[in-house]
């Protein structure tokens, strides 16, 4: 008698062959893996949750935004920075090895082709990760995206070619002024909006650290432009079960929204990042 196997949903539970692991800039890696389901069905803003080893250290999976997909060649990419044990192990994996992940998970950026004229994508640091898949999706809907991209210093930029070759105009900011606008990318956005005769039809799509997203929301309000933000929190499960990934909802009564299932993308005025 052949062994009994559990019937699992193969659209959400994956073991995919790693095709490439490449260090793009110091400590920032792109990992490409074969997966035709993801290559076809991932939405911009969605993420996958990866088990980096078969051990209990680290115990949890690690979440990463889907960075780029190619439905012709059946692969998907993530882009990640090595910051701790999980990402370190990930960076040491080799082509041919198998990537254990679940996903695509979470909601996605909402694109409204009718009301939207211009999409400003605002990325801080590794917040660049979901912007490429988003840019490609916007272009497909014939919305012209522009990228505003801030990092601390020039050497931290990555994937610029990918945006430029897609025809996406890129505006850079560095905190130390080593390239582009000197200062925070939020200031760059604000000055851009300030200079616009009208902000109607502009929407912001953003991903980055909370200290960047918080002022961005304020700016969006000030110029009356819709602003979607993709958030990062600790995640114990990624599927809505552990209740570990909450952010405060922006309302009087205390309420939490859960980033893994109700997000990671929120309207900036749905949430309260102020503490």
């Amino acid at each position, binding site marked *: *008698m052949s*062994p*009994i*196997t*559990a*019937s*699992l*949903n193969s659209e*959400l*539970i994956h073991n995919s062959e790693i095709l490439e692991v490449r260090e793009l800039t110091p400590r920032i890696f792109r990992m490409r893996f074969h997966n035709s389901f993801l290559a076809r069905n991932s939405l911009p803003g969605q993420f996958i949750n990866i*088990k980096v080893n078969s051990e*209990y*250290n*680290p*115990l*949890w*999976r690690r979440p990463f935004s889907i960075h780029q997909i190619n439905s012709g060649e059946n692969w998907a990419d993530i882009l990640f920075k090595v910051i701790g044990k999980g990402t370190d192990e990930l960076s040491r994996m080799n082509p041919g090895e198998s990537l254990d992940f*679940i996903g695509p998970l979470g909601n996605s950026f909402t694109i409204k082709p009718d009301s939207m004229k211009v999409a400003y994508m605002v990325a801080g640091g590794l917040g660049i990760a979901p912007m490429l898949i988003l840019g490609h999706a916007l272009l497909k809907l014939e919305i012209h995206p522009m990228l505003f991209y801030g990092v601390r210093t020039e050497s931290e930029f990555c994937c610029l070619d990918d945006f430029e070759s897609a025809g996406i105009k890129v505006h850079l900011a560095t905190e130390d002024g080593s390239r582009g606008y000197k200062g925070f990318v939020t200031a760059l956005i604000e000055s851009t909006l300030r200079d616009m005769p009208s902000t109607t039809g502009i929407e912001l799509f953003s991903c980055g650290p909370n200290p960047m997203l918080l002022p961005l929301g304020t700016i969006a309000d000030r110029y009356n432009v819709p602003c979607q933000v993709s958030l990062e*929190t*600790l995640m*114990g*499960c990624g*599927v*809505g*079960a*552990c*209740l*570990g990934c*909450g*952010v405060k909802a922006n309302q009087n009564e*205390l*309420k*939490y929204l859960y980033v893994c*299932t109700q997000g990671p993308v929120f309207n900036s005025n749905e949430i309260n990042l102020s503490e």
Partner: protein
Amino acid sequence: MSDLKVNIGNLTLKNPVLTASGTFGYGEEFSSFFDINDLGGIITKTITLKPRVGNPFPRIAETPSGMLNSIGLANVGVDAFISEKMPFLKTLNTAVIVNVAGNTVEEYVELISKLEDSDAEFDGYEINVSCPNVKEGGVLFGSNYNITAEITRKIRKATQRCVIIKLTPNVTSIGDVAAAVEQAGADSVSLINTLIGMAIDVDTRRPKIACITGGLSGPAIKPVALAKVFEVSKRVNIPIIGIGGIMNYQDALEFMMAGATAIEVGTANFIDPAISSTIVANLHNYCISHNIRHVREIVSSIIA
């Protein structure tokens, strides 16, 4: 084919694999990953009389082979549970066990009455007297066997459904508590709930959990949980449900050999959302390859 059925009180589970409260949502969260009807049963997130938003964040932290949590029984409350969560649970063809907690003995009874009086369809209760993450009740109740026994007696009177008391390991003698609970009419005891634990971020000097301490779960606690199951198995005759760090079918076997009739999968659901179903399949394969006709033959089969 082997017979995987086990009995807990008046309940017959199709197999011994349940999912632990607070780690499997209200079931629906996992239904996209696999057919949850393959399970022996599911146990809901703890329900309270009033909705609870839960504790401040961070609520979870990783530890060596384990995790801390202090969710604080965040849940929709019994009314929304009946109106919003029950419709899905009703459609299931597996045992549904509702986990409940109260701040006072009276609250437990009120909660049970509400559920009994509703048209909710479910199979039993797991009584959480062991949550380490709430200020009132919780582990304080669970470590006092008089109160635990009193809650059990009152609930026993209030329902015909299967009553499982979930025990805390944070006590000197879990055997004494289990014996008291059996005496008071419980159909079963489940153990362990989490161990009280703590972690500090040495860079910020802050606790990694906003509420400072939390409950430790995962593989790290498995040896403690097994010892408690073994201890309780020497003290009671009602079936024991084993919980604590079960990550695969071998772990499930360890608990059954130590004396558990069924097991609950907790933290492992976070790491592999379909693991409970895989455990059912592998348990079945194990029985077949070891010529075990009835899975219950494994219970207490330790050679010691």
